[in-house]
């Protein structure tokens, strides 16, 4: 039977389009305008063409910030995903322990980003911080203010502390949705613990795991507040990620043309990665037929 299409429904979308126009499209257009001009303030602009983009693409500073950003996202995904799965597997499925664990897991997620940064900034200080002072007394030469490796470890551990809970909660939701009959069948077959995980739990967690990876990757790729509060991008530029570098360039140096070009390239990378993830998630939903929503979002 021929499906009936009624395009008048699009009229209901107009209010949202107007909102997006003012909140996203007009600022984005302004950034594009800035990216091809130079300004010294006072609303005076001089045509620069593609010069800022050429500078950016040849800039070692940009390449290093981009590399650090990918490295950071890769490291935290490599830690948070397996750790999140392990914690979710270890959590109780029934009894009083369930709400206790869920509340404990949710706590770090409720803390504002700048507060997390402040907590870790103080926590890691050698003079007054519990972590820094304890490590110092144990003879460990730890100082995130002067040592790039220590700064990286601090920022990574802080992110793991803050966000592993999200992976845990998503994986736990996937685990509790597995019917008991699957486990009974596995017990009858004499399946090992590993076999239960590999052939029952992991496939059932597949979709939520994909969502967790997507959320953590996008969030970590745009991270700004926590590392800025803890290290300010230092020591040197060792923890200067793309967003921190962008703010330094735009506000610190008032280099608006260069910052606008960098914003656009950053935006394009995010847009590409979002599209890839969205496409993968949509098609995984269609293939598995689990249909938790994103498949129909086109």
């Amino acid at each position, binding site marked *: 039977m021929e*499906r009936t*299409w009624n*395009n008048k429904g*699009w009229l209901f979308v107009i209010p949202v389009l107007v909102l997006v126009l003012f909140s996203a499209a*007009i600022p984005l*257009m*302004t950034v*594009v*305008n*800035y990216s*091809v*001009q130079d*300004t010294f303030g006072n*609303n005076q*602009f001089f*045509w620069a*063409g*593609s*010069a800022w*983009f*050429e500078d950016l*693409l*040849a800039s070692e500073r940009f390449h290093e910030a981009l590399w650090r950003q990918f490295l950071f996202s890769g490291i935290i995904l490599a830690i948070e995903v397996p750790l999140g799965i392990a914690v979710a597997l270890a959590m109780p499925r029934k009894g009083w322990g369930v709400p206790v664990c869920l509340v404990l897991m949710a706590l770090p997620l409720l803390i504002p980003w700048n507060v997390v940064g402040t907590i870790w900034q103080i926590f890691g200080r050698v003079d007054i911080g519990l972590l820094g002072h304890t490590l110092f007394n144990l003879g460990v030469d730890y100082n995130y203010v002067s040592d790039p490796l220590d700064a990286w470890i601090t920022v990574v551990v802080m992110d793991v502390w803050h966000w592993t809970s999200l992976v845990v909660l998503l994986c736990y939701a996937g685990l509790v949705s597995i019917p008991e009959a699957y486990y009974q069948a596995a017990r009858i077959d004499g399946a090992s613990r590993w076999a239960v995980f590999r052939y029952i739990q992991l496939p059932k967690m597949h979709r939520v795991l994909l969502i967790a990876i997507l959320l953590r990757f996008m969030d970590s790729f745009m991270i700004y507040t926590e590392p800025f509060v803890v290290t300010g991008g230092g020591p040197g530029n060792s923890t200067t990620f793309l967003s921190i570098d962008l703010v330094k360039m735009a506000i610190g140096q008032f280099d608006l043309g260069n910052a606008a070009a960098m914003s656009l*390239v950053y935006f*394009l990378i995010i*847009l*590409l990665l979002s*599209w890839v993830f969205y*496409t993968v998630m*949509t*098609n995984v939903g269609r293939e598995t037929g689990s249909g938790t929503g994103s498949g129909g979002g*086109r």
Partner: protein
Amino acid sequence: MDLAWMAWTWPTAIFFVTIFTLIAAMGVWEWFRPGGAPRVGILRFETTRGDRLFVSLLGSAFICLAWLGLVGPSLWWALAVCLAYAVCVFRWV
């Protein structure tokens, strides 16, 4: 209405008018041929006309960036590559 704060230039205005014209044309196309003409192309998943336009525009942006980084500042040939790429996307993706 004073739009001086947006720092408009003729090239960027032409760029955005082109983008908005493309989107409007897609809207008109959709009005007369609703459904988005979904199909499975070489990427092995279903795409609609809107998806193909998005992939064309996003890919074109990266083609221009690659051209600037690897070849030089003149983007006329990059524009030709972008058009060829968009035709391929609409034909095969």
